[in-house]
């Protein structure tokens, strides 16, 4: 657990370039500890790249990152032990069975054999994956794969959880369970950083939101809990009753007219 005043994530002037292409530009962001934080943006706006930099997958071109109060860099192995990540592409080892994959993940994150086995069994039951002992991950449906990836992200009880599109492909009952677990995690002072395109879910689940546009530029960050109480968010002299209205206004997204459709 981290002291309540220490932000879970502090990003200062983060830039990520691929050759001449700028994926994230001068992004500065602070995520308070113990919050469910929504990180939103249109396709290609740099959300996954930002998560890649925040989790050690990608090397930032410039900028500073502090995670759980400590500087985050290539050598931050101990810090990684306190993080759980569910990447958008899931990152599963398809030739393994679900229990083998989760056991591998648990052992890599330092759990002893007995605890690892117990948690794997509990998670498989909780995710309704109990009867898949003879099925490789490559044979799983999209929703089942997502559940396994979620289980892998939480198995070691991380202080900071990154979830990239966690609810996509999962059935409503599964989504409801995951939301409950996420609330339990944040209630204990731990932090959830999630990205999704389902704005209604963000509105109901997250307390704070950051919105970025191409190329990875922060355009808004703030508390959205007011929307839960039928309130409005004021921005640019306008009042927004839903997150979707605010998002479309900030990102300038429009519907293209297809006359032939």
């Amino acid at each position, binding site marked *: 657990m981290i002291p309540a005043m220490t932000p879970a994530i502090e990003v200062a002037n983060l830039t990520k370039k691929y050759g001449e292409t700028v994926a994230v530009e001068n992004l500065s962001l602070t995520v308070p500890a113990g919050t469910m934080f929504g990180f939103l943006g249109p396709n290609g706006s740099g959300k996954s790249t930002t998560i890649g930099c925040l*989790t*050690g*997958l*990608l*090397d930032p071109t410039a900028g500073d990152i502090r995670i759980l109060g400590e500087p985050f860099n*290539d*050598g931050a*192995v*101990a*810090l*990684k*032990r306190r*993080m759980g*990540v569910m*990447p958008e*592409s*899931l*990152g*599963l*080892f*398809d*030739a*393994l*069975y*679900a*229990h*083998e994959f989760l056991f*591998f993940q648990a*052992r*890599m*994150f*330092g759990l002893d054999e007995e605890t690892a*086995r117990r948690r*794997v*069994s509990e998670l*498989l039951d909780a995710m309704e994956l*109990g*009867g*898949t*002992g*003879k*099925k*490789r991950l*490559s*044979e799983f449906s999209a929703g089942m794969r997502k559940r396994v990836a979620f289980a892998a992200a939480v198995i070691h009880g991380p202080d900071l959880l990154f979830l990239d599109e966690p609810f996509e492909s999962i059935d409503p009952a599964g989504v409801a369970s995951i939301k409950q677990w996420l609330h339990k995690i944040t209630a204990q002072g731990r932090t959830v950083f999630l990205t999704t395109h389902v704005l209604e879910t963000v509105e109901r689940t997250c307390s704070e939101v950051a919105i970025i546009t191409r190329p990875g530029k922060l355009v808004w960050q703030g508390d959205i809990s007011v929307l839960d109480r039928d309130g409005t968010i004021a921005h640019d002299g306008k009042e927004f009753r839903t997150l979707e209205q605010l998002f479309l206004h900030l990102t300038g997204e429009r519907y293209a007219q297809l006359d032939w459709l």
Partner: protein
Amino acid sequence: MLEIPVMNAPLILRLVGLRYTLLWAQTRTRNGRIALFLAGYLFAGLIVILMTAGGIGAAMVAVRSGQAEPVAQAVLGGLFVNALIASVVTGFGINTAFTDAALRRYALNLRERLAARHLTGILEPIWIFVLGLDLGLATGMYVFGAGSFWLGVVAVVLLLITDYLLARVLATLIEWLSHVRGGTAILFLMLMCACLLPSFLIPRLANAHGAKAAMMAALHYTPPFAAAALMAHAGAGLGRQFGILAGWIEALLLALAAIEKQAARPRGAVAAAAAWDNRYDRIASIFGPAMAPLVGRSLRYYVRSNKVRFNYIAAIPLLAFLTFNRASGATETGPLHYFVRALGAFAVAGFLGTAVMSTNQFGFDASGFRRYFLLPIAPGAILRASSYTALFVGSTLVAAAWVLWLLFAPVPFDPRMAPMLLASGVGGLCLFNALAIWTSLLAARPTNFETTFGNQLSLAANVLLIGGLLTCVFGVVALDKMAGPAAVLRWWWVPIPAAALAIAFYLYSLRRGAIVFVSRRERLLNTLEGRN
């Protein structure tokens, strides 16, 4: 009125075009351009050499010697068998460009999907190359007045279809067997028979009374002999030769349909609770607690990969074939000559079984590659774990080959042979695995874990695997011819420092490779996740 079903030819041809577009698209990458340049260079060279020596040149020899048909039989038979081996062993020309499931999204019925699949298959570059060589012979025989041009063309086309179908049947059969229970044992027996029976049977049959004539008579019912007869004789027995080729095609099509139907049968997915199988973790624990989960994961990949399993069981029969057979160009026989050839076989023994995975260590991980960098461990450990697993699996082959040699070695046995063979095996294993680290890092490719066939290796990995095998096999044949077994045994200590050097090179590659692994991780991630 009888209605003749019309194929959706434009769509099928568009799919063939798409296949070539996809092949061409590979040249947009740097590796693809290098491969294209080398393939084009080799292709042009081979065309010149083989059209003169194997095609039209053979036709000249055939006509001038007055032995048109026997020469045509030998040339067509050789091309037939070589194309078959090249496609089944290396996977060239039988990669499934479009599966039936993939073709279902288009407006094609069952017959059209079948036609599209096989048309894209038979129009792969390797079959066009074989067709070119066969046509060279047909053209030459026509030009020198030993056959009809059009009959020759028809014979060549039918022969090519038979060759393609036979390769497809064998590949599908092996693929299917590698998925079913007990299939691996059947495959092993098949391989042992294919590798060892010819050298056992042929000398005996050659001496048996009447056996040679019976064999020759039987060979007349094979596709190359039927095609040769069609090429050489414009009139007599035409219907019979057509019948033989058509019969082969029909039988192979039926066999293929039956195997594909069997292979497509869904395997019952029985609900089962998690069964904790500790074998892998117990073996992995010898690499220490920090490395054990990674090695255990990697070991499961090696053991569960059909490609690795097939190559693993094929390695020792293949090496026995290369050691005891004259196919490698060796003319000398006898225990000491076999020993010299075994030195080369041992050097490549451990690598052969694992090369499809060890030369492309992360190619099977797909998006799992991403996870490595989320783990709380130095990335170098991932490379080490993966390479140790290849080394460990390969070492079991070296050990097995060594024990088999000690048990069944041709007499007289010289005590110097044991350390020489062991040093050759260990040195080769380390050298090839060191080079495999570099192909994995510098020429990675996304690879389908589920298939048994298809050459999905990068150009560099192919050069390492095929080049390594050829160097070891022909290198010792040359050594045997130039120095002789007595001299090789006199210098018995040489393989030991050579093995020590190979181990040092392996350790250097591991250390240096870890640095490259980190610096190239984003490029590797893009490649392995298909964003080349």
